[in-house]
């Protein structure tokens, strides 16, 4: 009986060990992540069918705003350029709009406030699993892009940020990108205010992207420039974003 039990225990532990080791081998192989990643393309397509691109994220009331909102990633960009902007309370800040637009331009915070602004109370869902609710105010990205005039082959909007989450140099720069469906979604805004106050440094001052219906890492902080482009493979690591270049999905709807 004891022999049988020992055998059984060894068999179970051996199988579990093999399973975990096997999974780790597959995770590190060249083909494993490609096969597993097929599911993510399915997620994007099926979710677009079930939840149309025009569907709105739920908007909450002021009573729902969470008492805390954990600032993740960079909380204080340390480049000289950013420190200089911060020292002057972002009065010299200009958001650059470049790429496949007919009218490239620069916008100060005051310029952005003069555009049609939208205020929304939405839930922020981090890829780690936690959520927080806050009120955001800012111009709709769609309006800004409309004014800039998109060229016919424009497909993506890229956000270049001031933070160097991945270390000094261009390789460590945070950036993000979204497609035009999300860019022209009414709830996609360039937030300059959070909970009725100017956006604080840890939350991405002076401007952070709000692209509701996607996870937190898409909500780029410290946005310095917007580039309209037809492809993503020439920017950063080529996957469309800082975390995307590090194994996370470009489509962050789940």
């Amino acid at each position, binding site marked *: 009986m004891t022999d049988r039990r020992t055998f059984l225990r060894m068999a179970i532990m051996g199988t579990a060990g093999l399973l975990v080791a096997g*999974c780790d081998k597959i995770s590190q192989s060249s083909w494993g992540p490609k096969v597993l990643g097929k599911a993510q393309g399915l997620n994007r397509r099926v979710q677009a069918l079930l*939840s149309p691109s025009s569907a709105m994220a*739920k908007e909450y009331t002021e009573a729902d705003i969470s008492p*805390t909102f*954990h600032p993740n990633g960079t909380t204080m960009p340390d480049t000289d350029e950013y420190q200089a902007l911060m020292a002057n309370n972002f009065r010299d800040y200009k958001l650059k709009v470049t790429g496949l637009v007919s009218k490239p331009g620069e916008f100060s915070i005051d310029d952005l406030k003069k555009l049609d602004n939208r205020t929304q109370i939405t839930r922020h869902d981090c890829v780690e699993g936690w*959520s927080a609710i806050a009120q955001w105010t800012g111009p709709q990205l769609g309006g800004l892009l409309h004014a800039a005039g998109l060229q016919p082959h424009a497909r993506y909007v890229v956000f270049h940020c001031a933070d160097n989450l991945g270390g000094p140099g261009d390789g460590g720069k945070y950036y993000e990108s979204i497609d035009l469906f999300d860019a022209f979604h009414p709830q996609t805004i360039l937030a300059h205010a959070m909970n009725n106050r100017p956006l604080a440094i840890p939350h991405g001052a002076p401007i952070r992207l709000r692209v509701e219906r996607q996870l937190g890492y898409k909500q780029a902080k410290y946005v310095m420039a917007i580039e309209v482009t037809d492809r993503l493979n020439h920017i950063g690591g080529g996957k469309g974003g800082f975390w995307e270049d*590090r194994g996370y999905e470009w489509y962050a709807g*789940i």
Partner: protein
Amino acid sequence: MTTETVTENVMGPSPAAITPPAPAASKRLVYRHSLPIRLMHWINVVSLSLMFFSGLQIFNAHPSLSWGNYNNPDKPLLALDAREDASGNLIGITRIGKHEFNTTGVLGVSKGSDGTPTARGFPSWLTVPGPGWLSMGRQWHFFFAWIFVLNGLCYIGYSLAKKHVQRDLWPTKADWRGIGQSIADHVRFKHPHGEEALRYNILQRLAYLIVIFVFGIGIVLMGLAMSPRMDAVLSPMVELVGGRQAARTIHFIIAWAFVAFVLIHVFEVLISGVFNQLRGMITGYYKVDVEPGSVVKPEPVAVIKETTHD
């Protein structure tokens, strides 16, 4: 639906066609589980296991549970924390409501890949992949989520079309009347023999129905409730269950309820004839005792009309 029944005589080598089997010693093989059911069962074993282990990897990125739409970091329902004690050693603390337990070595703090104590919710031997690797855990989780969902939909469609649910799982009035006896039998680990073993008892029926239709559908819906894109259309359901973090908590609870079911299921298989049960779910054939006096035709190969038990 007809099932093929092979009667064999285990007493001697003489063919049953010549010598009818002695009733007391005979057993027959019953084709119990059809091929689609067997396939779907084992696909489910693989996908559910990998979703559980990769789910714990994802959980480790934020090893805490809350109710409502957002987290209250000070008042989690459950948290697997790491702290330093007075001498600077990492200790794992499991918090359940106001209660705290030292779970160093397993929960909160366990050995990392280099063998040193590391802050992580669940230990590496329970997560896929082993080391902390959220993005890869998500790849595994969503890949097998699709297999789980498609397999589950096939199972439900097939079982309804073949009347497996209606005939074998849905309890009859007689089943309900026998529930007291069934509970008494289960706690004494008493299992039916002979023809009775082919029929699912009331507790089995209820367990399977709850696992399939409550756990299975529930865990998928709570998974979707965590998707910000899906919440654009599912928010009424999310609010109904108490918010996104509540959905995450329910998702976690159902995952462990699946584990509890699997442990009981495997235990019952082990004590009710592990070889026979495994053969049943691998080849389809399940051996039952033919009781003395029961009317089983002595033909070596008899096609007997009876209910299916797949």
